[in-house]
């Protein structure tokens, strides 16, 4: 929508006093709808919902296998799950970039809306150059949830103390000391060659599983399971809680903007 706000035209048609008032109207009414929050994206909402379902299911599974090889971070299924989530996060980030190019005037905008909304409205409305609306620079989107995908990526890939995420924490709590890296490498290769007439190569001696003591087994279960048992009054364990909060926030933001018919 564009408005005819040519000063000479308006003065001829309306007279000087009315023209002045019309500029006020042009400033307010002549602007296109503002879009400061990236518009609703059903694809993003669905991806976040699907990933949330997957995270919840995985947490339940890990709770049941805590203290066994299946919960060890070196297990191929655990590695594959975290890799899949990395892909999901990247896909969501790409969608977000496509619909929300990023903040430019957002810091100033946010500073202005601090306080009573009614007092700040004038200050945040786009300003019109005198005489014409055609030179308006559209207000770009505020970059809402700006760091969320960086944080989510860290959650699913962080494997060092400096960049600690789920892989690092699993390594701390769920790595079984009586199972070597070779054990899991052999397991991975075995799955890849399942059904072949012979193994791809002889398994090294280090691939053989050790024998844990009773105490080791009990300790392993307790240390690993503690990540997945929800504290009293909560729904999720310590390990995935932050990731769930991130996904919930994306879903909630999209849900607030979803067209009424689709809610």
């Amino acid at each position, binding site marked *: 929508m564009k408005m005819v706000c040519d000063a000479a035209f308006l003065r001829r048609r309306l007279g000087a006093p009315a023209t002045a008032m019309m500029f006020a109207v042009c400033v307010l009414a002549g602007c296109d709808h503002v879009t400061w929050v990236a518009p609703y994206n059903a694809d993003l909402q669905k991806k976040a919902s699907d990933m949330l379902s997957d995270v919840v299911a995985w947490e339940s599974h890990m709770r049941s296998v805590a203290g066994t090889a299946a919960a060890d971070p070196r297990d191929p299924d655990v590695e594959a799950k975290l890799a899949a989530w990395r892909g999901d996060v990247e896909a969501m980030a790409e969608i977000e970039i496509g619909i929300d190019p990023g903040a430019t005037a957002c810091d100033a905008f946010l500073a202005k809306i601090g306080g009573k909304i009614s007092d700040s409205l004038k200050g945040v409305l786009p300003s019109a150059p005198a005489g014409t609306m055609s030179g308006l620079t559209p207000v770009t989107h505020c970059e809402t949830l700006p760091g969320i995908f960086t944080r989510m990526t860290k959650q699913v890939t962080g494997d060092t103390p400096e960049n600690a995420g789920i892989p690092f924490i699993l390594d701390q709590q769920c790595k079984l000391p009586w199972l070597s890296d070779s054990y899991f490498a052999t397991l991975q290769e075995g799955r890849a060659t399942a059904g072949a007439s012979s193994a791809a190569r002889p398994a090294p001696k280090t691939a053989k599983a050790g024998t844990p003591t009773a105490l080791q087994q009990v300790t392993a279960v307790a240390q690993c399971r503690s990540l997945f048992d929800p504290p*009293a009054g909560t729904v999720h364990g310590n390990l995935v809680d*932050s990731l769930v909060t991130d996904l919930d926030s994306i879903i909630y933001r999209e849900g607030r903007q979803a067209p009424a018919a689709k809610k």
Partner: protein
Amino acid sequence: MSIEEDITAALTAGAKAGAAAASTGGRDFVEDITKFVVPHLEDIGLQLASIVTKRLAGVYTDATAKALIDSEEDAIQTLVETVTTLAVLDVQNIVNAIVDALNGAVNTALGFALLA
């Protein structure tokens, strides 16, 4: 009515539309905080208490406890950004409600198309 009176009526209609949208938006925002943000903040508090308890009990290593606490602090950051997002969305809705009301009222009052 004179042009000035027509335009004044249009501005008044826009202001009323904005006030109505602000009222709705304010209720929506309070509901957002109550329904979404507060429960998540409470959850984070319980998670942090749990992490500290498990560290003191020797279940978590220092590195584990630090990593989990860092992740909950990141979750707080997400919630803060979510609150900001919802506030921006409410202001956006208020502005657009005013624009809609003004566009309609001005066109009717002036009797010629301002929208090209």
